[in-house]
């Protein structure tokens, strides 16, 4: 297989992203290596083709943002907003991710091998996120759809004002946010979680050891009892 290599010590980010944006869905250039990322922002953002892009080091903000169809591998840490508003495809962060990982993402699969900082999965709309370590405070804030799976611990106010997303945590939860409650793990949840753990390379984690959290549905449904309050 041909490898297309772009060295960011020699080219600006715009060269990389323009080349990736020019790819058609039937392209033969399906394997890209990005050298010397040096924490630059917006690397491989807006890709819309079934290609593999490997970032050889730490990435800055919004890496793989708006991703569609592509597989983006970050061989280091990712800054704020990795895979923000992803539509489909796979994004793998081999190190840690900063705040707002997978924010507003509609679909696809985001795997973070290390820790994710605050607001992981904020306003997520259908993405599946799996974090090997811990997630920071306010993760899955106003999450609408999709799943957030955490093998480590979750920070304060997990799932605050959550809609219909599902959260699975293996470790401890510092606190649950408004309207987020623990729910029973039924057989179908264990089976679906096992599949996600396999797909994300965490098959060693026993799905039965996770606890499930979701919406109590008291916040976003209007209660007619309260009509007099307005």
């Amino acid at each position: 297989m041909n490898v297309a290599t772009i060295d960011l010590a020699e080219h600006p980010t715009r060269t990389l992203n323009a080349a990736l944006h020019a790819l058609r869905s039937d392209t033969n250039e399906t394997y890209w290596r990005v050298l010397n990322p040096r924490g630059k922002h917006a690397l491989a953002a807006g890709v819309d083709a079934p290609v593999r892009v490997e970032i050889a080091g730490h990435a800055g903000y919004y890496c793989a943002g708006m991703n569609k169809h592509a597989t983006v591998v970050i061989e280091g840490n990712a800054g704020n907003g990795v895979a923000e508003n992803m539509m489909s495809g796979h994004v793998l962060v081999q190190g840690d991710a900063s705040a707002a990982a997978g924010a507003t993402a509609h679909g696809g699969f985001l795997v973070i091998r290390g820790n994710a900082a605050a607001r992981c999965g904020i306003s997520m709309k259908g993405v599946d996120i799996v974090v090997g370590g811990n997630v920071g405070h306010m993760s899955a804030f106003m999450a609408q759809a999709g799943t957030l799976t955490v093998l480590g611990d979750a920070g304060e106010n997990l799932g605050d004002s959550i809609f219909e997303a599902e959260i699975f945590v293996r470790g401890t939860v510092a606190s649950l946010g408004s309207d987020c409650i623990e729910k029973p793990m039924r057989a179908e949840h264990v089976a679906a979680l096992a599949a996600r753990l396999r797909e994300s390379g965490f098959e060693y984690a026993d799905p039965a050891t996770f606890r499930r959290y979701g919406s109590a549905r008291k916040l976003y449904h209007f209660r007619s009892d309260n009509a007099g309050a307005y």
Partner: protein
Amino acid sequence: MCGIVGLFLKRPGQEASLGAHLAVMLATMRDRGPDSAGFAIYGTENEYIKLTLRGAAEADLQGLADMLDVRVDLLSTHAVLHAPVEKFPAIREKLGSLPGITIVGAGRRMVLFKEVGLPEDVAARFGLPRMAGTHGIGHTRMATESAVTTDGAHPYTTGMDQCLVHNGSLSNHNSVRRRLIREGLHFETENDTEVAAAYLSWRMREGDSLETALYASLNDLDGFFTFVVGTRTGFAVLRDPISCKPAVLAETDDWVAFGSEYRALVDLPGIENARVWEPVPARVYAWEHAA
């Protein structure tokens, strides 16, 4: 916005490279703060107290040096006056009575420079790349709430060998300033960051360690902030509990570095193998040399 950087050298023998590394880090953070910049360097301790001054015309400085019988080094718009310890109180009082002269910072080891302009230009005009020291912190400013002036640039200092840079803004700085004025603290500006610096100076004056003072600030300062603080022997980092403002720490056997973004750290020697992590909210990270 704004960018902050810090570098703390853990082992002796590297001091000559401090300014060069910090200058590169500062220049990289230009995107976060292009209107002014400043930095503090902790150099060698000797029998003098270093007073960094601003506002004196070049012609006046020699007169000042002769009058006070001290050495004064001119660096662009600033000057460093070397005051013998026993003469320091008298010299400081004398300087305070001279119109137009501002004492930017004072300490056994700390010198402090700040000016409007692009960070790389500010670093160059003061000769930062040639400065030696054990640790230093810097700031690039994107002014949001007050004018682009030298007074509005960071770092801020309110105590000997103490300084602070800040990314964020404080909402209760007026009430805290009033309280600190009653405690005898002195303020040069209306800036919120100066209040944070004075708050830490006050707590340490009352006996707190830097770490304890920083933890106390979580209760008393309202707003959002990432602080990087320098003292004569140490260097500390704190983010507010919400942590809106970015922060990256990296550490090797030789150094600890702070950057608003990882980009600021990429040219440090050994960064490829450094431990790189995001400081968690409301936790103090501190490093100290044996005094």
